[in-house]
């Protein structure tokens, strides 16, 4: 059993390395656009309101907190609590998606469309790409929720791997929030 766990663990590590390179490339692009333009946001644009992105950040970070609890619950064989934390993670993850869609409508309402130049390109495309990954994260949480049963002796590694991926998505969002919105 030990070796199977090691395999899953390694596989998840390599996978996250790949995803990190994907997002690092996007962020490198942003750094170059930003550092090579005289004004940011470019002339004629203004910073977007921080309200909704802050709510999104709060939601996804909180969800990471609940997600973090799951493996402890599994270890302690407290599957009731594990399911509670899993459901809370799911609800918060879902609310994050809702908040993001409000964010996109707000952008549109303020007259900023996808094709309004590089500033809008980054705001839309990066949040879309991230959201697509969050959807994948939500699917993996759903998978975990279906699999969650005491009889499975590989439950722990599944919980750990899904948790890693979920934290990774939170970390990427935090980085986007700080660099795309706050700074």
């Amino acid at each position: 059993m030990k070796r199977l766990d090691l395999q899953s663990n390694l596989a998840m590590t390599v996978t996250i390395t790949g995803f990190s390179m994907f997002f690092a490339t996007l962020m490198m692009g942003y750094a170059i656009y930003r550092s090579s333009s005289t004004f940011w946001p470019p002339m004629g644009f203004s910073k977007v309101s921080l309200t909704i992105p802050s709510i999104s950040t709060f939601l996804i970070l909180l969800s990471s907190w609940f997600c973090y609890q799951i493996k402890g619950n599994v270890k302690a064989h407290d599957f009731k609590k594990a399911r509670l934390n899993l459901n809370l993670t799911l609800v918060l993850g879902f609310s994050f998606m809702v908040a993001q869609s409000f964010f996109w409508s707000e952008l549109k309402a303020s007259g900023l469309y996808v094709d309004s130049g590089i500033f809008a390109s980054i705001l839309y495309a990066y949040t879309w790409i991230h959201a697509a990954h969050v959807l994948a994260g939500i699917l993996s949480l759903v998978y975990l929720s279906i699999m969650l049963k005491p009889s499975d002796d590989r439950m722990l590694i599944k919980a750990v791997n899904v948790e890693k991926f979920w934290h990774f998505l939170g970390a990427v969002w935090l980085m986007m929030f700080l660099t795309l919105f706050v700074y």
Partner: protein
Amino acid sequence: MSGGFNEIHPEPTTFISKYIISFDHKVIAKQFLWYGILFLGIGGIMALLIRWTLAYPGVPFPILGPLLFPDSAGVVPPDTYAMLFTMHGTIMIFYAITPILIGAFGNYCIPLMIGARDMAFPMLNMLSFWFAAASALVVLISLCTPLGSAAGGWTSYPTLSTMIGSPGSGQTLWCLAIFLLGISSTMGAVNYVTTVITLRAPGMGYFDMPLTVWGLWLTAILNAIFVPVLGAGVMLLMMDRVMGTTFFLAGASATAGTGDPVLFQHVFWIFGHPEVYILILPAWGIVSDLLSFFSRKPAFGAKATALSMTAVSILSTLVYGHHMFTTQMSPLLTQSFMTLTMTISIPSAIFFANWLGTIWKGSIRFDSPMLFSLGVVFVFGLGGLTGLHLGTVTTDLYLHDTYFVVGHFHYTMAASVLLGGYAGIYFWFPKMFGRMMNETLAKIHFWGTMIPLNGIFFGMLMVGYGGMHRRIYNPFVYESLQRLIPINMMITWSAILMGAFQIIFVWNFLMSLKKGPKASNNPWEVGTLEWTIPSPPVHHNYDVIPVVKCGPHEFGNPNLKNGRDFQYQTEELVRG
């Protein structure tokens, strides 16, 4: 940790589960092999179309021409020419060489050579193949779209590849295909990396692995890290084309704030330079092993070879800027990239010297796998040397985007990888299919490939040095280049000759598959694990997981008394 035991999926019973949706690494390897050979043919015909146009501009392509281009009476039209070199490059790299070297040999060799029953994740492996198949389908569809497939070069630089340079859906489908293939490669990489780390047979340390496995493993690591970089690039390019973003559009085409076409070049080559090593590393590994196997001598400095391949992999991540010397980089940067590029010569020279050390005074058996391996040594040497001219800023400013570059990268990546791939196919064919290939035809195939190949690619170096640019429909509208027409005709006829000799390979492959003499367990008398089991191996490879007691290259040990000149890896090293 080398646990050594892995659970095996049950033996398939239906046709579909056995040959189509197979979880078996040996079957998936064969799927990738057929896939790669098919695309090698398509890419090869495209190469001939390009070459014909360059030797006989305005003359209809014989036989196929009128069928393919009825509107121009069989002459390759200019826009089609751009599509042809783009798709030739794309197909050869991503759909021919990658599936053969990484997909087929990676899948076939890794589990067998490390003594495992399958990959760590057989289902992921199956998915990896089917993602690659979906990607191939998208490419084939893109060839049939009204404006044709992508035509912005295999590098797809904007603005050639944006809606302005390439209207029509071909380029969009190209992006989608590359993205799908990237998913497939990443899945494969996750599997290979994990398999090598966790499933080595008991007793097999990293330096007891055959160098083939080393090469494939390093390739997988580079793949996992750098394929997602290209993924991000083509994703943004696709958004520019479909959603109206302006990441790579500058000037009037970008309405407000401006994108950056050159950024794509950076992203492409951050991936692209490691990619050329991704392609060559498996071939290096295979050749390092085969040279030892057929010289009946231990691989000279095998550990140093493995470590220098690792060093090259690491350095390959730091040199991409040498593709962009002419993009007005700061001289500080160009010179840094030049210096880093030159440092790659050091580890390369180490394993190259090791290759020569391996064959030095060996009792060489000139079987076809060995001939092809020696061919790799020769062409890779030439390719590597011409790289120095391109890595040096001052000479590159002249040589950039000429046929010298085309000659260089064909020597390093096309010729070496192609010959390395053939070496591997001739070598493992008996294990894969349980039959021997015809050795005489194989030798004819070797010389019929090797000689014209040098005519093609050395000719390319020459016309490039003479100033002929690449990717030009008719270079001879420039009067100064007209004196290069004879060499171009030589290149083209060499290419036709080489193409013709590939028919011998296909014939040999197909006939041997049906009628070849039955192969013994170990026709080449080699000691690595896959030769201890029947050809072809049973479904679960090893009835008992082998225990490894010595390295993969134990040849010519004078203490051996059993009439063999080699030892199996499962045998205790014989000492005096």
